[in-house]
């Protein structure tokens, strides 16, 4: 069920995975998402905490180290494959849109 839900990533999920291409502490991810999306996407701390737990459970990310209450994470190969798949899907959407809308753009 959870795997099925993750087949199409939501915007926050997509940006969290992009952020975790580099090892990062959980609490810093929200800032990174904001930066990568140029302020377009914000993730609340509750939502972020919930998603990190879910990604970890699904094997999409893994914990790399724990320093006190700070836990670091990084995306797994499986997570990367999901992210790339999602990127291709979005690009395909964009290409299709461009094909039909280029006259209007």
């Amino acid at each position, binding site marked *: 069920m959870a795997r099925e839900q993750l087949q199409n990533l939501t915007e*926050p999920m997509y940006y969290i995975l992009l952020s975790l291409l580099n090892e990062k502490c*959980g609490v810093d991810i*929200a800032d990174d998402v904001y930066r990568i999306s140029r302020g377009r996407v914000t993730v*609340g*701390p*509750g*939502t972020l905490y919930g*998603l990190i*737990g879910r990604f970890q459970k699904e094997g999409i990310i893994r914990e790399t180290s724990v320093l006190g*209450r700070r836990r670091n994470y990084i995306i797994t190969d499986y997570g990367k494959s999901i992210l790339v798949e999602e990127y291709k899907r979005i690009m395909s959407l964009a290409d299709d849109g461009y094909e039909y809308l280029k006259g209007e753009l």
Partner: protein
Amino acid sequence: MFGEKKESKRKLITFAPYECAAIEEYLEEMALKGWMLDFVSSNSMHFKSIEPKAIKFSVDVFKNMKILEGEDSDSALEYREYCRKAGWNFIDQYKKIQIFYSDDSKAIPIQTDAAEKFNTIVNASISSVLGQFFLVIIFFLFIYEQLSLSLDYIVTDNFAIIAYSIMAIIMTIHFIDIVNFIIWAVKSKHRLKKSRTVLYNTYRSVKRKNMLNVSVTFVMIILYVLCFVVDRNPEKSMSLIIGAICLGAVSLTGGILIKRYIKESNDSGRKKTAVITIISVICVVLCVFSINAAAFLTGDNFSGADDNGQEIILTLDDFGIKNSDDAEPLIIRKKSIAASIVKYMEGSDDKSLWYDDFCCDKKLIYDYYLNWIINNKKKYTSLVDISDKFSLHQDEKVYSLYNGNDILLQLDGQIIFIGNSDIDKDKEEVVNKVLQKVKNKLSH
């Protein structure tokens, strides 16, 4: 001194996880009035005085909270750290509910995913809703069973009337809560599917619910106190008070012990479960003991001393039978605001008489009792209407039961069931004697 603002105050308020938005609204209103939330307890919120200002609150549900790990588990602290980084300062928690505030009115909400927030709230609510459902079922079965088995005891005892009314009210309140939650969950799920905003209860509706709960509790306490005044049975009142105090003390001590143990102990989860189970079992046993002790002390033991003003309508002496062993008849008298009853037993093995004489001038209760006793008797035997053998008023009836000498008399405001007595008299003579005595009583 008059006009000086207090430093702190306490407000009674209870809420469910799906009412978190209402509590945020309430806390923001209080901050504007100069009251900042200090801490929360099971049924109240404690505020401290501040300069009135706009503060943003977030009442969130932390689904990973495990009761056995205590309030400050590693996962809870980690979660609060995420919130702190986003500009939310932790105030206090109650069960899975975490309360934060932020001075920054533009702080990012703790939950930015509506579906995730909805699922978290539903998951956090399930256990308490199931608990409420279990309570409603237990209360319903208990009330139903007691009304089926001991209606005569309930309607003739003020304390029993109040106790069962309280149970019925509590059951209804919890049932309404469950229905409200289900309606909200179904509606919200539907709205989410249509990509619409989930609507959470406003503070107005939570306030209404709390006012209703407080009013009902207040009325129940008043009624309970009134019972002590109306009943005028000091021994019974004292035993009930002692029973209630024991029950309260045991529950409170048990609750405090468990809470303190969870907070302070570093034991493993399995050991914690074992210790909590043992404390809970001891508390339950002590509670049951308190209830039984109070029930024993308030039972029929005091009934002999409780003169309900009802006359004894029939004795063995009325049939010219002398009690062979000179034993005093056993008379149990009970009287409530609704009805009164005399349970009479006299005689020994060879000659005996026993009957229940129920008096009630409230038509609804009278009819309910009549139906109850007729249906109860019909379970074991058949009733034959023998009213035409006697001169009775229009609404009066006499039934003969085919399992011995039992007779049921339905008179004006009075229902008399004469049990399987052994007095060598035929039914007609017994009924005529009763009718004559009742008529004499009325003429007096």
